[in-house]
């Protein structure tokens, strides 16, 4: 059964529903709210202009996540990005100390680990699901998750947070 996902109204509904998810994922990927906003715009513009037939809403969600992660990678590898220095490195959000410490630690991880950590801890996705979305082997996702946790423990000086 094909899923009807081509109407403008439906696409707007999808954008409203998944904007927060995509924007926050983009922030965690780019570490910058302005780049995150650009990437989010780009992702949804692609979605709006896409004639792709999705099988289900889950399929759309997975597509959006994948395009976001790929767009972020593309940004980092772009010549423009390499030759520019961001004005602000921190995300201007007031957070309690502990939250800020945890979030800051995640931002210090390499990009591929940040994606896995974000999808696992914030989106509550299973490793198999993450693997499918990011087109990785499940073992790869698990090893990335494990390495990311180890790095986080080092950054946060102890494993109290993971008890």
């Amino acid at each position, binding site marked *: 059964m094909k899923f009807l996902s081509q109407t403008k109204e439906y696409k707007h509904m999808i*954008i*409203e529903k998944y*904007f*927060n998810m995509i*924007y*926050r994922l983009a*922030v*965690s990927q780019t570490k910058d*709210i302005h780049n*995150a*906003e*650009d990437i*989010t*715009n*780009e992702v*949804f*513009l*692609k979605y*709006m*202009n896409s004639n*792709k037939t999705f099988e289900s809403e889950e399929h759309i969600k997975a*597509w959006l996540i*994948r*395009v976001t992660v*790929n*767009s972020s*990678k*593309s940004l*980092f*590898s*772009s*010549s423009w990005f*390499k030759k520019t220095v961001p004005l602000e490195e921190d*995300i201007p*959000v*007031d*957070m309690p100390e*502990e*939250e*800020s410490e*945890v*979030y800051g630690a995640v931002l210090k991880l*390499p*990009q*591929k680990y940040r994606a896995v*950590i*974000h999808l696992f*801890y*914030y989106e509550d996705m299973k490793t198999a699901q993450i693997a499918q979305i*990011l*087109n*990785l*082997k499940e073992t*790869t996702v698990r*090893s990335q998750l494990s390495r990311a946790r180890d790095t*986080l423990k080092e950054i946060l000086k102890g494993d*109290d*947070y*993971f*008890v």
Partner: protein
Amino acid sequence: MFKDLYKQANDRIDTKEPFERMMKNLENAPQSADKKIAFIRKAEYAAALAACVCLTFVGVKVYNQNELKQNPVLDIQKNIKENDTSQNKIDTNDDILPNTSLQENTQIKKEVSPNNSSSELKMPAKEKYQQAKTDNSIATESVQQEYAPPADETVPDTIINNAAEHAEIYTAEATAESVPDDNANESIETPPVMAAAAIMFDGGSDKQYDSSDTSYSLAGGNSRSINITTKEITLSEYYDYIGKKISMPEGYEIKTDNSKLFEVGENGIFTDDRWTIVFEKGNGTAEITPSKDISSVKHYFETYVTTNISGVDAAIFSGGDAEFSAYMISDGIAYEINTANIDKEELKKIISSLAE
């Protein structure tokens, strides 16, 4: 505890304003894009019209000059006519010598009037040209004003970027050697991949390892931009294509998997433990899984890139934020080989040896 804190921190990130801005952009996008296209078309038409007028005028002018060169009598007659109508200084000169030919007389007139250059003699025609030029500028300006969009209308950056991106793709399509039609089941003779018009790479200077940005380029250049346009094809179709273009080295094989189509096609996927073919602007990614350990990348570069890979034009290493990647290029297609597990010092040595 980590999970809770991370969730809470994420929830504090404001999404309301970015959402409103994006919705505004999306709503304005199609209208602005249409207007922009209409404006460009009208401007193109006006420019073409102006160019035709100019060319016609210049053509007539050149023709007349040639005619005058070939027939001096015409030149003299023209001068006489112009002098009669323009009240040139020479007309007021009374030193016309009797018993001289018209040609001689004209020559003498030039000599006795040092201010009367030949250009002055032909002033009326020149004035006509200047007038025509001015009229043409006014006409062009009026056309531009007529078709210019209102000053308060702006085209969102996202649309401009999008248009630029499409323009890039169309350029690549237009210059591709063979452009297949929409039928995905075409034979391999018409490659299913439309090769890009140009490939440029970022990195250090040509054939030098640049430690400052951990990037390296064998191809050289100032901008890292790989434009590749593909269309939806099955993996097996694409593997068949690759198989025809590049023969894999001993110990490596192309894994065929016909179960899926290329889907998310905007950027490549970077993986830890396999090789990945990357399309920056294509319809997906496909993987080449090596049957040997990826740590044999040294072997790969020594046997696969530096020694006679048919169809490979160039190979580069490129730095990511945490890892090196290796690319090889063939007919405008970039194949990326992830080298995350490779010792970077070892990689530098390989790069240095490649650069020699």
